[in-house]
């Protein structure tokens, strides 16, 4: 029975760029049920063992499976298929770099546009949430064992959910006043509405997780105290420590890490100052150094708080930018300007060190470096000045060390990430870790996948008591 092939992707309604740079509402409005069915009907339903989309997804969501359920108008069924491997579809559907994962090798790509898997996944989660549809959740009877989770980012939340379902008593400790990790303090509202994160956290509480905010493990409670009190501990502490370049003038006023800039705006709601107490300084021109998701988020947030002109300054060329395609596209639509092959060399302030100028140098691309990307090399004599009121560093982050500062037994790599083996076991018995804390800056779905696999390993450890003599480091 030959179905007509629909080559074109069904467009996702979006807020108009001119309007949206004045608000923090979500940019992509998402599919309606009708549009979702239409997009779903384009899927060729490749067999499970073969489907390249499933192979491309880090948590192997059964994509043709849930798409089929959408066509059958069985949203509860679709949600349950997704939940088999992914408990946060409202989040991953929005923030996964789909073009490098599930959608990369979609067969439809050979005939026309690839299936918009991300937006379909998001549709299922949103429709279910808005209509009070819940996936059947089987929770095993309590087994009397306790697990502590440190950090409430996607890795911690996922590990917590899975362990509760296995019958464990789970407590999540979070340093900030609100749970969610980067999902709350980093990724802006216009890309991931906070209500969605709140909903997931509420669900976790509903199935029995205890969440203790305002507790810094290593300070408020020591890791050893957790080890003594719990049967196992999972560290999902992320990679939240920002890097700066130690250039002249780097501590002038008006220079921020992306984390500070985004935390003020997202977590502390500085865009509502003075109704909210936390301020952000708004000037005319802002430049972001870096070209990943974090950089795009900072640039687009800057427009929304009122900067008139926003630049992305990147030391390589367009094709090396690491941000999601959708983010780059949205940033361009909103009027963010891109400057390639430039690196900052100095920041110049006025007599009170209020930032006025960033001095840049032009680069050319040299030989590929260890990451396989061509290395930027400064061209002498090409320095020039860009007048700015603010600069945001988005050049990468290191793991938060607040926890391990005083725990020498926890071995780290030369990048500061925690050493773990293939079962996410750290060098301390009973202590597991996953997410950005072991990978360095990675993605939400990889952090989630780690949380899931670590939960399995934790269960195995608590049941068997087995722990290896030596931890064989896994490389990520």
């Amino acid at each position: 029975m030959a179905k007509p092939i629909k080559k074109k992707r069904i467009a996702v309604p979006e807020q108009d760029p001119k309007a949206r740079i004045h608000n923090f509402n979500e940019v992509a409005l998402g599919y309606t049920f009708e549009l979702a069915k239409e997009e779903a009907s384009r899927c060729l339903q490749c067999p499970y063992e073969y489907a390249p989309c499933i192979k491309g997804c880090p948590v192997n969501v059964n994509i043709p499976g849930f798409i089929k359920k959408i066509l059958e108008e069985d949203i509860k069924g679709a949600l349950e298929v997704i939940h088999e491997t992914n408990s946060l579809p409202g989040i991953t559907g929005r923030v996964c770099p789909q073009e490098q994962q599930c959608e990369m090798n979609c067969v439809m790509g050979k005939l026309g546009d690839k299936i918009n898997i991300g937006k379909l996944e998001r549709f299922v989660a949103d429709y279910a949430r808005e209509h009070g549809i819940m996936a059947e959740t089987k929770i095993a009877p309590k087994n009397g064992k306790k697990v502590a989770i440190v950090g409430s980012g996607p890795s911690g939340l996922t590990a917590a959910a899975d362990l509760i379902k296995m019958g464990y008593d789970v407590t999540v400790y979070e340093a900030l006043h609100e749970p969610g990790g980067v999902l709350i303090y980093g990724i802006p509202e216009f890309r991931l509405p906070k209500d969605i994160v709140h909903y997931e956290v509420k669900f976790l509480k509903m199935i029995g997780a205890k969440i203790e905010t305002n507790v810094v493990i290593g300070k408020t409670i020591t890791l050893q105290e957790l080890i003594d009190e719990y049967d196992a501990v999972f560290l999902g502490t992320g990679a939240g420590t920002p890097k700066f370049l130690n250039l002249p003038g780097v501590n002038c006023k008006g220079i921020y890490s992306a984390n500070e800039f985004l935390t003020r705006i997202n977590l502390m709601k500085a865009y509502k100052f003075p109704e909210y107490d936390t301020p952000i300084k708004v000037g005319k021109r802002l430049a972001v150094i870096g070209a990943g998701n974090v950089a795009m988020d900072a640039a687009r947030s800057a427009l929304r708080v009122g900067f008139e002109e926003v630049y992305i300054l990147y030391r390589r060329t367009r094709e090396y930018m690491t941000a999601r395609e959708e983010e780059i596209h949205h940033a361009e639509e909103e009027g963010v300007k891109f400057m390639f092959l430039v690196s900052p060399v100095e920041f110049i302030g006025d007599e009170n060190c209020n930032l006025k100028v960033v001095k840049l140098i032009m680069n050319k691309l040299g030989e590929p470096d260890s990451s396989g990307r061509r290395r930027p090399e400064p061209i002498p004599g090409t320095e020039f000045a860009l007048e700015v009121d603010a600069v945001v560093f988005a050049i990468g982050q290191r793991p938060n060390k607040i926890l391990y500062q005083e725990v020498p037994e926890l071995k780290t790599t030369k990048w500061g990430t925690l050493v773990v083996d293939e079962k996410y076991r750290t060098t301390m018995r009973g202590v597991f870790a996953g997410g950005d804390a072991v990978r360095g800056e990675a993605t939400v779905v990889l952090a989630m996948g780690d949380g899931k696999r670590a939960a399995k390993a934790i269960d195995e450890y608590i049941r068997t008591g087995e722990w290896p003599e030596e931890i064989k480091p896994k490389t990520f």
Partner: protein
Amino acid sequence: MFEIVDKKVLAPNIKWIRVKAPLVAKSARAGQFIVLRLHEKGERIPLTLFKWHKEDGTIELVFQEVGKTTYELGSYEPGDKIMDIVGPLGKPTHIENYGTAIVVSGGVGAPIGYAVTRALKEAGNHVVSIIGFRNKQYVILEDEFRKVSDELLITTDDGSYVRKGFTTDVLKEYLANGGKADYVFTVGPVIMMKLIADITRKYGIKTDASLNPIMVDGTGMCGACRVTVGGEIKFACVDGPDFDAHQVNFDELLSRLTEYKEEERIALDRYVKGVH
């Protein structure tokens, strides 16, 4: 939520509160601080731990009303609740028996100085406390300091109490008169700490300063609190707040503290108008 159980006004605009925060009270050590947020719309601000009591799970804080958040906190009464308190944060002050230790505190640095003084005393040091205030009205914690110091030298800027002069004058005289000093700890206005460091540098006395940059999270995540120490960028909330005073770039710290002056004024004006 964290309940305020007791409150006192120590001097004009300087208030003392005792708050229920059992987890903080259990782990606190001298030199550490907490970050609090009063309510849903509040800002996160750091305050140093003055005293803490494991037995009843309370902590004591002393703060000066300087802007919106501290004024608002000053309006809270026993029974009122603070939404968030996280801590203890920062590295505890390094305490050992140096021999003779001098603690120089200025103004509202006094509560921090007090906690460190007590810890140094308990470690067996001969402790000389130098505390300075604007004038007689602002003298706080005198009795407290007396209990934990071997010598207590008080000064006021205008001479309205004990003597006239700054803490720097007192330290200079003490050292010039052959006073012994194996270690100096200083906390207070940035400019004072800078001048204290200049004095002790000449004498080659190891000196730590407790720095107070603007902070947001207090857990090493934002870099708002960065300071330059020995040419390197450090985050005061996790690498400090204490640093080798001879290595600190105090001018930079002074400048960074003024970053939000304009916004702070707007917030305070709006608050004062709303209240009155």
